[in-house]
């Protein structure tokens, strides 16, 4: 095998390795995503407006994380973060918007 071809093989092997790490989430990825979701949900709690779905999605993330399924764990944690952020948005916009509903 020529050195040129060997180099190409080596390079594609490297590429493959890079691609798989991008696909498969690590425990660290999960921990980061989970911490972000938890922080957002805590903020929603300070606004007295947590959603039950945020809590259940967070626990699904935790369960997957503990089982070593970090792909699922990261996906669930990101979903939980999105839910928590939506609840924060809701609480903030309702500060004025509730008045539209009032019977006058």
């Amino acid at each position, binding site marked *: 095998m020529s050195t040129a071809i060997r180099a190409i093989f080596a390079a594609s092997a490297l590429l493959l390795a890079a691609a798989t790490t991008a696909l498969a989430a690590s425990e660290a990825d999960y921990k980061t995503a989970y911490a972000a979701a938890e922080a957002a949900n805590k903020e929603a*709690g300070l606004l*007295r*407006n*947590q*959603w*039950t*779905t945020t*809590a259940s999605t967070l626990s699904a993330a935790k369960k997957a994380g503990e089982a070593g399924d970090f792909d699922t764990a990261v996906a669930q944690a990101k979903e939980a973060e999105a*839910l928590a952020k*939506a*609840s924060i948005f*809701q*609480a903030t916009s*309702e500060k004025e*918007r*509730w*008045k539209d*509903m*009032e*019977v*006058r």
Partner: protein
Amino acid sequence: MTRRFAIRAAIATLALGVLALAPAAYAADSVDPAADKAAFQKFFTGKFPKLKLEDFVNGPYSMNEDLHKQWEEKEQFPPYEFSLEAGKEMFSTPFKNGKTYADCFPNQGIGIRQNYPYFDEKEGKVVTLELALNRCREANGEAPFSYVKDDMAALTAYMAFTSRGKPMDIKIPNDPRALEAYQKGKEYFYTRRGQLNFSCATCHIQSPGERIRAEVLAPALGILNAMPIYRSEWSGMGTTSRRFTTCNSQIRGVPLNPQDDEYRDLEYYLSYVSNGLPISGPGARP
């Protein structure tokens, strides 16, 4: 016209303008419970012109004739009877120190349900009947009851029963903190929450009488007058605290803790706008 006069005229106009604007701006943000109550009651009597004011207190049963017949049948063998008897017994049984609940309340606790919640000017907060009952227990060395379980339901059932027919009579003292509590309760009532983005008003003002799953929604007017309630779906009794937390979680909102300030203020607001409607508790529900 002299220059001086022109300036004076301009200032006068400005002042008038400010005066004219000021009350309008104030009205938009002012807290006027009496006006709120009038508008609230008018909304419901206008929406259900056949109902008398006192009929609203029967929740879903007030909403149509078939349901009302069911209610009359139920009242002949009321499912809350057991709880009521238990409450009466508990109420008259002395604590370990020999005192009783009667010692904690005006008029020995009889016929006073319509005055709760009240604003306690010493504490600067709203005090509900459930809270007052637990404070009475604790002041006498007894452990507090769960706000969502049978013992609390039984006690409040008995106290409501001795007050049946008395018009709800919630007072808002001339104290800025009382007005603030009232206003916060109103804000809580109208604020959308939970993943479903519903406020209490979405269901109990915009849709009373409509069905949600198998249930007919109660109107917000008089919605606390029948508390506590027996519900077939719960196969048991439920306190006001139980109802508030359940209504929060069914729209996928995490409920607060029973008797948190928000719920106390909410109860204050909802009871005040139902002033004049009779106490009918304990109630029975499908």
